[in-house]
């Protein structure tokens, strides 16, 4: 639109100059900003595309931020899991060494296990920023209680050591409990072994096998199970009878008693008396002694391992009681009476799904962890079982009991087939990590391609603008000079 207000002829000339000046200003802006236009209108037909491109670039930026923050989390989780696996291996090899009880009532393997359990608990409370890595969805809560609370309890809430003690009472059946077995002589010539109740505790009769001549073995049968052996005639020297028991931790132990002619029988031997009813008495006495010893060693160790399964389960299980020695059932501990070792989020879904991140429009990685996942819990509970039991150096059965415990824990730490291992968790996380790496590469390529495209559409080549400025400048100068010349070359000047 032309300017009015001054004479129209000169206004047209001035208008052309003003337009050129505007164009020059615009080119200068282009040179300064590197952008073709400062409005969407000026970008041209590709303006919608540009908006889309920019939103894509911004999304990639957001994905990259996600990747960098979760890769830190994954790396921290991996190193924690590595260390937990290492500790489990160390504990295992320590457990296989011959036990020697120290002055504090613990074996070397136990002291080490306790210290390293502390480290495991620390690792399970690892944080990336303010985020607890092993708490499932409850990322703002520590994954596990303090080791002190877990082992020793917290006020009214029972800790693991108390659970082990209660379970020990329930499994052993108190003084004269014979590991919850009744050993009697119902007839003159027979010996009977009976479980005292239907319960998860104590010895469970598995089998009785005998090579004793003239002996009749019955059972084990019934519920509670009963087995008996009737010495109809006397056995011969060197013949044996074997009682096999299942223990609460799933292991089994057997007692083999050998008939001997010697009047002073060694351990696990019984003297053949002149009559079979007297021999039966000897057999009963030998069996009772052997059962009591087995209760004090293997059963006690197995009880501790079983207690660890109870306590570290969800919810924790504990023996109904007091009067634990005659208990027949387990009950779920509540938050008021039992310390819950895992304080993170529990859910029925797999732990990995508790933390997911979108690293690409189509790719989501799952890297959630729960401290009570089977693979981790298994290590924790076995180490805790090892650490919780103490021995008196004066107890004659102490070494054997320690060895029974060591052996069980050692074998358990060779994770049974089919059970999740810490290494399995690590592999799953590593899968997610490799997805991050490929996504990062892809993002880098896409981003550079998109940015190039954006620059092509929105940007202006500096050389071109500079050339245009030069050309325009020349034109403007020429126009100004011509205009001035035109105004000067008026007839007015020549009259």
């Amino acid at each position, binding site marked *: *639109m*032309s300017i*009015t*207000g*001054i*004479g*129209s*002829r*000169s206004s*047209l000339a001035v*208008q052309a100059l003003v337009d050129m000046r505007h164009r020059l200003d615009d080119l200068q802006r282009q040179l300064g900003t590197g*952008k073709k*236009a*400062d*409005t*969407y*209108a*000026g*970008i*041209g*037909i590709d*303006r*919608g595309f*540009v*908006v*889309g491109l*920019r*939103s894509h670039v*911004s*999304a990639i*930026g*957001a*994905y990259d*931020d*996600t990747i960098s*923050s*979760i890769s830190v989390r994954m790396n921290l989780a991996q190193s924690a899991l590595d260390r937990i696996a290492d500790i489990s291996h160390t504990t295992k090899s320590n457990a296989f060494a011959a036990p020697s009880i120290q002055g504090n009532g613990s074996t070397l393997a136990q002291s080490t296990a306790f210290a390293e359990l502390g480290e495991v608990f620390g690792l399970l409370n690892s944080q990336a*920023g*303010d*985020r607890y890595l092993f*708490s*499932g*969805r*409850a*990322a*703002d*809560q520590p994954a596990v209680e303090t080791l002190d609370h877990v082992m020793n309890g917290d006020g009214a809430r029972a800790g693991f050591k108390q659970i082990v003690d209660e379970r020990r009472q329930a499994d052993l059946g108190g003084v004269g409990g014979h590991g919850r077995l009744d050993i009697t002589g119902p007839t003159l010539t027979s010996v009977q072994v009976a479980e005292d109740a239907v319960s998860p505790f104590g010895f469970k009769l598995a089998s009785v096998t005998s090579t004793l001549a003239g002996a009749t073995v019955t059972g084990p049968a019934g519920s509670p199970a009963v087995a008996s052996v009737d010495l109809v005639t006397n056995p011969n020297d060197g013949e044996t009878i074997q009682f096999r028991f299942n223990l609460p931790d799933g292991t089994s132990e057997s007692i083999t008693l050998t008939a001997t002619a010697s009047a002073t029988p060694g351990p696990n031997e019984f003297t053949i008396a002149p009559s079979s009813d007297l021999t039966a008495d000897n057999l009963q006495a030998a069996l009772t002694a052997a059962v009591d010893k087995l209760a004090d060693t293997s059963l006690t160790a197995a009880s501790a391992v079983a207690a660890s399964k109870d306590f570290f389960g969800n919810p924790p299980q504990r023996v109904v009681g007091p009067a634990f020695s005659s208990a027949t059932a387990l009950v779920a501990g509540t938050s008021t009476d039992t310390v819950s070792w895992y304080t993170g*989020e529990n859910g029925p879904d797999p732990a990995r799904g*508790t*933390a*997911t*991140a*979108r690293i690409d429009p189509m790719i989501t990685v799952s890297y959630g962890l729960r401290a009570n996942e089977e693979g981790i819990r298994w290590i924790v509970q076995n180490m805790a079982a090892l650490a919780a039991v103490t021995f008196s150096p004066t107890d004659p059965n102490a070494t054997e009991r320690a060895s029974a415990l060591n052996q069980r824990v050692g074998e358990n730490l060779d994770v049974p087939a089919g059970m999740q291992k810490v290494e399995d968790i690590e592999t799953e996380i590593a899968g997610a990590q490799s997805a991050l790496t490929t996504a990062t590469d892809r993002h880098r390529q896409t981003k550079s391609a998109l940015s190039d495209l954006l620059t092509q559409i*929105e940007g202006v080549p500096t050389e071109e603008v500079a050339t245009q400025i030069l050309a325009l400048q020349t034109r403007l100068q020429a126009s100004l000079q011509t205009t001035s010349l035109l105004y000067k070359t*008026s*007839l*007015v000047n020549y*009259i």
Partner: protein
Amino acid sequence: MSLTQSLATAMAGLRTTQAGLSVVSANVANAETPGYVRKSLVQISTAAGSLSTGVRVDAINRQLDQYIQRQMRVESSGASYADLRAQFYDRLQSVYGVPGADATLETLYNDFMAATQALSTSPDSASARGAVLSAAQVLTQQLNGMTADIQGLRSDAELGLADAVRQANEAMQRIAQINQQLGFATANEATTENLLDQRDRYVDQLAQLMDINVVPNDRNQISVFTHSGLQLVGISASTLEFDAQGSITANSQWSADPAERSVGTLVLKGPNSGDIDLIANRAIRSGQIAAYLEMRDQILVGAQAQIDEIAAGLARALSDRTTDGTAVSFPPQAGFDIDLTGLLDGNSVTLTYTDNLSSTQRTVTLVRVDDPTALPLSNAATANPSDKVVGLDFSGGMASVISQIMSALGATGLAFSNSGNTLHVLDDGAANAVNVDAVSATKTVASLTGGSAEFPFFLDASASYTGAIKSSGSQITGFAGRITVNAALLADPSRLVVFQTSPLTPSGDATRPNFIFDQLNSASLTFSPQSGIGTTGAPFSGTLPAFMRQVISQQGEAAEAAASLKDGQDVVYNSLKERFNSSAAVNIDEEMANLLSLQNSYAANARVLSTVKEMMDTLLRL
């Protein structure tokens, strides 16, 4: 012939030359006067009998090409229309900001999505939650600001109109005055020509404001009409009246009904005719006034509708929960139950059924309307082009609701009943003329911890945004100016993650953050064709970012088109003006040349005088 006659003739020559000089001097003096048309002197010889006896000034003519002048006026309306439109579009473009700059809708939306993405990675992080809220706040502030800017532009258009009307009235008055003066003047005198120059200037001014028709009559007078034939000026002038409104909001709209109109309207008051509303009659199609009107009532209203749609999309995407009805069967009848508890004003129930007689599927949308004066609703109340919309007043209870549905739908064969707030929709059973295919209800979630991912992230000031329809208009109008982040959410950012309190959602649960991200990024929404994107028959359906791209593209395109229209008009107008000037403008060189020849002619006449004097002296000395 006598010497005295020669003396008189030479004197006449001197007089004429002096008049010529005065014309030249007037031309030179007015060379830069706007509207001044070059004058030229027409002289004729006077004769007595067979002898030429002298010379006299016959007329002072204006050198102009009337055809081009008429053409130029038409184009000047067009040029000022295009120019003002381009100016407004340019200002509207600045509302959308510099592409890619920090404070643009696209950047802020991208930032909001990035913040949400970060939150879904770290739902427990207080800083991630804060970042989402502040990104959302900046986004709503941007929408609020854009609304204020757009309404500011509308307000400017309103003021511009008032100003333009004042100028038009002034020009019309002046034209009428000059018409009257010309009635007494003699043609072709210098004063007459100057009056014509002045009048042309006022007509030109008027032509810039609106498209006019100029009809000349005898005695040099003119009548001015609007394009539609309404007389603006004759011997006396009509008056334009414009009742400018002080404050313009998104809800201020022009309407033919004075009771509903909340912006100014343009009324022509003739000296001897009634009032005529020029907007209602579409009497003005070009010029600045037309551009102002188009901006105020269409373009800017459309731009506002677009960002309102964006705001409404944001709010609804996060707060609307659609639940399907449960299938029920009372043999031989079958149908669906839908719970209407919590159905807010503006929420809707969608019912799809098949008319077995014509085997066509039909959709009915039942909308809760709490303002009974807004009833009945038109089918255009929803974006869906093929549904029948029934507005329901819930104040009379469910029984009344059911009778409203029945009377609105007529004889469809569908049976409606209720138990409590549950609506049963059943088919006609054994007759099998109709089957109910689906029933669903879309409700706006009003609680932050209602147990679902949906939640009221954005509010209309402090109320839920439901798209409620009132007699004064829909809630969507101007929503972009009122949208805000829920204050309860700002007070407790944990609600971005916690969607239920019992059992308490764990702080690391990404359900809600993922929902927000998915809705913002990929949820498909249908947008009203009132935004100018999509048509009534095929409304635009897509994600929020896609709609935003469309908006930005469309606005950019429109602005670019307006700019090129302006450039085109300028070229046409300027070339016409150039041509007009080639005859009408004062050329100093030409005037100087005339001056020289006048000087010569003056000298020659003077020479004749002195020669006659010598001859007289000679004669007297005889």
